[in-house]
């Protein structure tokens, strides 16, 4: 035979082999072909298998294998996928790292699926086998691939996830190994996708420090290929919309670094303002208040306090208040009123400063100054009324009942028929004075814990009170929740009492509830107080403010 004839014969044999293999696969999937969707799947399987068999390089294998996985995974056909991969792996040695990786992946998701669907029979009968198969297949992939190959990285990623899900002793070393491998890969390779994939997964598992590190590398590699600032900004915004805030922030950081060098001051401030509006605290959309404050600081560095408009300054104070950076928030609210005395937020700002001074900083006199300032205002706003209530309350707690009564009477006089929520509270206080009774227990406890010397060591760190939303319309639902950080007590349930007070709206939460839903019928800044008490004493206190419009 001539050389060309031999070559032709070899090609023919190769074609027959591929054809027969595809035929076997098609026959294997015949039952599914009865349904149209299965027929479509079979067509897809046929095409993908052909692509895999004919692929000349490993790079060409990633996409068809991933698509193949999606076909099986969407119907949770994990065992079928494993069987298919086994037969595929036998055809070509080069495919084995891929078939092993996807076998491991299938078993990993299968175990999760069995647990989620509580398919216990299969879980208990085959779980251990699946686990063994996972460990064995993933190890084979790791052993048969180089660190420069994305598959090597993905194998280590899934191995770490496996241990992390089980919270076992190997999770830490697997994470270290994954990070080292990824950093090594990043040093050598230009393909950024695997780096982002690893970072995304780390982020979703709460490994924020590690994901940030990888995102930084990813961004550095990405910006190298982007010439236009606009492109960078668009990608950053895109990730913000996808709620991948970590990556978005890393890209914005790179973008800000670029514009700082080239743009004039005004233009830079305008861009930073747009960014800070994205990230500032909002009830309804993704936000990162701490990142926002970092940008606020940048604006201040570039343009000083003059760079802040009234709205921007309010936004900064509100943002800080919501992440309980109370002292900083108070200072910005003070600046806001100083710089913009006629701001529409003036009363809200003064009231909040009064509250923070009194109940967070424990500086009653400074607090009173701001409540007094509100009380002196001619126009009656909800905060003016609340300021009078606070003055009455503080005097009542200090046992200056005459003065307290004076403030309460003034409040009722100025409120007329409005501000019923505060008026109701005021009437309760007046009744206490009239009947020579102490302040209602929950409220008095809050005042004691916030203002008495003996409770100085309680710094609001063991209790976290939140409102959702913080900014709401009248008669809309508001959810108030509390989170307590207690020392371990094992299987001993520590009985806690939740002493709610302040403007708690239409609901009267019981002392056994750490959370409640309420509504407000009148506008204003509503302070909600909480003291948590355990059998051994006061755990901590907290205060939260919701703005009702």
């Amino acid at each position, binding site marked *: 035979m001539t050389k060309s004839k031999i070559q032709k014969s070899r090609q023919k044999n190769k074609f027959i082999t591929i054809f027969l293999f595809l035929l076997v696969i098609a026959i294997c999937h015949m039952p599914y072909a009865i349904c149209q969707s299965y027929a479509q799947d079979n067509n897809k399987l046929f095409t993908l298998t052909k692509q895999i068999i004919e692929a000349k390089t490993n790079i060409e294998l990633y996409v068809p294998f991933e698509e193949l996985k999606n076909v099986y995974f969407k119907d949770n056909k994990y065992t079928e996928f494993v069987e298919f991969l086994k037969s595929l792996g036998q055809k070509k040695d080069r495919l084995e790292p891929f078939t092993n990786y996807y076998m491991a992946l299938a078993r990993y998701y299968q175990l999760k699926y069995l*647990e989620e669907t*509580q398919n*216990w029979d299969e*879980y*208990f009968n085959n*779980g*251990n086998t699946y*686990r*063994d198969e996972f*460990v*064995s297949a993933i190890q084979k992939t790791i052993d048969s691939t180089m660190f420069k190959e994305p598959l090597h990285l993905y194998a280590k990623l899934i191995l770490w996830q496996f241990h992390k899900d*089980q*919270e*076992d*002793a*190997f*999770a*830490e070393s697997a994470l270290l190994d994954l990070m080292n491998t990824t950093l090594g890969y990043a040093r050598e390779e230009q393909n950024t996708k695997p780096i982002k994939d690893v970072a995304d997964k780390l982020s979703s598992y709460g490994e924020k420090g590690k994901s940030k590190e990888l995102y930084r590398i990813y961004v550095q590699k990405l910006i190298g290929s982007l010439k236009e600032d606009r492109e960078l900004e668009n990608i950053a915004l895109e990730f913000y919309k996808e709620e991948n805030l970590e990556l978005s922030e890393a890209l914005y950081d790179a973008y800000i670094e670029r514009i700082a060098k080239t743009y004039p001051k005004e233009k830079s401030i305008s861009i930073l303002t747009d960014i800070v509006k994205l990230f500032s605290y909002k009830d309804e959309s993704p936000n990162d208040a701490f990142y926002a404050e970092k940008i606020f600081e940048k604006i201040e560095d570039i343009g000083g306090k003059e760079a802040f408009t009234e709205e921007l300054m309010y936004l900064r104070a509100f943002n800080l208040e919501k992440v309980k950076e109370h002292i900083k928030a108070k200072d910005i609210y003070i600046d806001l009123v100083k710089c913009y005395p006629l701001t529409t937020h003036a009363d809200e700002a003064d009231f909040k400063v009064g509250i923070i001074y009194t109940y967070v900083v424990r500086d009653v006199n400074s607090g009173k100054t701001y409540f007094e300032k509100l009380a002196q205002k001619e126009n009656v706003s909800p905060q003016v009324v609340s300021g009078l209530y606070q003055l009455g309350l503080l005097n009542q707690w200090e046992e200056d009942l005459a003065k307290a009564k004076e403030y309460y009477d003034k409040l009722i006089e100025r409120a007329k028929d409005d501000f019923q929520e505060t008026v109701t509270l005021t009437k309760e206080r007046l009744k206490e004075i009239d009947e020579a009774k102490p302040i209602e227990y929950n409220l008095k406890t809050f005042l004691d814990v916030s203002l008495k010397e003996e409770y100085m*060591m309680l710094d609001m760190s063991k209790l976290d009170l939140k409102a959702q939303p913080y900014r709401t319309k009248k008669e809309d639902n508001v959810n108030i929740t509390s989170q307590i950080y*207690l*020392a*371990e*007590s*094992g*299987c*001993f*349930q*520590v009985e806690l009492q939740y002493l709610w007070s302040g403007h708690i709206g239409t609901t009267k939460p019981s002392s056994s509830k750490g959370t409640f839903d309420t509504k407000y019928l009148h506008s204003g800044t509503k302070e909600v107080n909480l003291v948590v008490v*355990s*059998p*051994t004493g006061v755990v901590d206190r907290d205060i939260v403010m919701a703005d009702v419009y």
Partner: protein
Amino acid sequence: MPVTLRVKRAKRTKRAQRTKRAKGMKKIYIVVIFLLALVVTLIFATGMMGRPKPGVYIKKLKDSHYQLIANRKPYIVKGACYNPIPIGENHEYDWWSDPHTPWLRDGKLMQEMGVNTIRVYQPHENIEEVRRVIHDLYALYGIRTILGHWLGFWEYPCPFYSDKAFQDRIKKEVLEMVAAYKDEPGILLWILGNENNYSCWGRVNPWSDEEIDKEADPQKKNLLRAKIYYTFVNDLAREIHGVDPDHPVALGNGELVGLDIASKVCPDIDLVACIIYRGKTFGNLFQSLKATFDRPILLSEFGADSYDAYKNLEDQNMQAFFLESQWRQIYENLAKNKKGAGNCLGGTIFEWTDEWWKHNESDPKGYKIHNPEAGWSSGSYYFDIKAPGNMNMNEEHFGIVALSEELESGLNKRIPKKSYYVIREFWKNPNLNPKNKKGAKSR
């Protein structure tokens, strides 16, 4: 000289040399025999002077791996906490003297499952009855007993660990317990306390004294209490070793709370017996302990309940799922498993049978009701954490064997739950990474 004479002389010389050599060899033999005899004598003498190995002890291997040795063989504790309170009774019930001998019924079931150890929190006052139970379980089923002592944790008023009179009384009780049972072949080890350490942090059964009261800093108050408590436990351990060198002494501890203090004041503690409820696994417990207090660990209380508080129905699969996962991690951290911490000695599941009295012990009517209400909350048991108030831990449903109201020879019928079978299968063939199976083999 004639040839014959020369030959004769040569022969004589050779003979003389041979005799001389033989004499020399004889001397060497004598010296060697003497030396051998000396060595044997020395070995024998040393053996006589030193103690034989204790019946149960902890062997430290390389890399701070630890192995429990009983009767000269490695021993993995495959156990259950045992408190067989019948339906309708509460914790005051004296099962030790029950004429229907529940431990015999349970011992057989345990043996069939593969349980080799029971843990009892504190023995009954009647020494003979306790001895009988320990003896029966060991002699009939090969099941060893871990005996514990509450160290007055449930006394009223609170346990004042800094009070000398209180300390003396507890010490007397503990040493009497050890003296009474140390010679029982079925005894495995002693556990001092359970979750008493939480009292130092003031959350459960809080106590104080004048010196502690004087301290203003709450954190320092806790540390003062912890130091007092752990020092007391170490004193007990030291005294126990004096009376009974044959069994290890464990410090019972809730989680790892306070073990940094214990590491400084508890040199006489042999192992830590931890009470851990972390759901599917124990997290980094084993490594953390190694870093905090390098002692072997026995999981002396762990497990899951078999009631889904969210769906409000019995779910034995859920319990089996958690328990199997927990046992897998225990095995991964046994000695000689290269990937694990190697400091785990095994565990005692909480618990063998359900206890129907636990939900509200002040209501005797409730002792006859298998109460579905949860007593505490743990997010780690995630299947039913969405139950009202996140209360998902059903204290009356922790048994791996259910009790039926139907009586069998005077005892509530025992009905093994799913976890009984799942753990039985796991123990038969602990599924670990195949490379690690070798290290997991033991009695």
